[in-house]
């Protein structure tokens, strides 16, 4: 049986060449009746047009959600979504929540110890005791 080589698949490395923002869509849900949506209604009329203009790469949908608290939902390229409840928040706070969703990568939140994650092979190779000169102590 012939030996088959392992197929390598190109790993996505967003940002090395072109950069695509991971957040592709933001849904803004509000309620016309509820008091917790008051800040959201102000945000939608005052701040959202500017926000949308500054971020043309994000699709923005605004839709009512009757008798529920207002939420912002972000949809990401990796298929996940994140939502933040913005009940009783001021428009400025809602903007900061929208920025959080915009900048997020869409990944599940994880604790990380190491700052650098590399897919590349080690540049200097793996140390071997059988190669190279004897090193003086």
């Amino acid at each position, binding site marked *: 049986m012939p030996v088959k080589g392992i197929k390598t698949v190109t790993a996505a*490395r*967003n*940002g*090395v*060449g072109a*950069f695509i*923002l*991971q957040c592709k869509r933001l849904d803004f849900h509000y309620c016309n009746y509820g008091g917790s949506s008051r800040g959201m209604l102000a945000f939608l009329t005052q701040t959202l047009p500017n926000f949308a203009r500054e971020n043309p790469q994000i699709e923005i949908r605004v839709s009512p959600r009757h008798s529920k608290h207002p939420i912002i939902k972000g949809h990401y390229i990796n298929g996940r979504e994140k939502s933040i409840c913005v009940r009783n928040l001021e428009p400025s706070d809602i903007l900061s929540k929208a920025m*959080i969703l*915009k*900048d*997020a*990568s869409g*990944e599940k*939140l*994880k*604790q*990380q110890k190491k*700052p*650098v*994650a*590399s*897919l*590349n092979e080690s*540049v*200097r*190779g793996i140390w071997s005791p059988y190669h*190279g*000169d004897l*090193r003086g102590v």
Partner: protein
Amino acid sequence: MFSRSVLRSLAADLRWSAPSSISSAAPLQQRACLHQTALLRTSQQETQTPYSPLSPETPLSATPRVQNSQPVAQNPPRVPSSDSALSFVPQTRADVPTAKQPVAPSFESPIQVTKSLMSRLPHLVGQSPHYVVAELHARPYLLTEGDHIRLPFLMPKVKSGDILRFNRASAVGSRDFTMKGSPHLDERLFECRVRVTGVESEPMRIKEKTKRRQRHTKQARSKHRYTIMRVMEVRVKTPEELLEEGAVVIEDSEDTPTIEARQ
């Protein structure tokens, strides 16, 4: 600690001249050296004695900087203006000199490269991939092209999509060669570009705070945010590029750097 006699002499004649200087203010000697393989050493044995002299480059702290990239529109924080820079004495936390701020450098004198560094540089440039030990706020990060970085802090005033240049590196190298700075390399010798890809956060941490003899427990919550970025490019400049940018080749002199073989 210092001896009694020294103190006596100080107190006795109250010397007005100050011969001693602050140790940390002493200019850091910048050096650069290449490490080479045993293989190559055999061919270049006669030239390659360990710790062969190269002349020191200009001290990093005093290195005048030339702008070698596109200028960046930044809103400058409170800094002394250039004309009063000499007489300006930083008083409050807000007074941070430009050298300690993330501002694109401007160089006044061209980079100085020693002859031996120039002769070794093609070997390093020709061998890819490269790695760089970049230092951010004095913390080293070993980076190669395409790496994903999650900084242990939220970088201020950057937005996702921004391109950063890392300009402090202690070493740049390939498989067999390493150019080491002591402590840092001149930032015009290499290019390390990084793209900010966003901001991530960690899961909420809840720490229970208890005190003795009390039933009450307090919950301290924390959820830090971190800047994530991607290394776009790690590149060493070729000698031709350096010369094009106006590098001055200087003679090797007695005191300093080393060319070591990789063993």
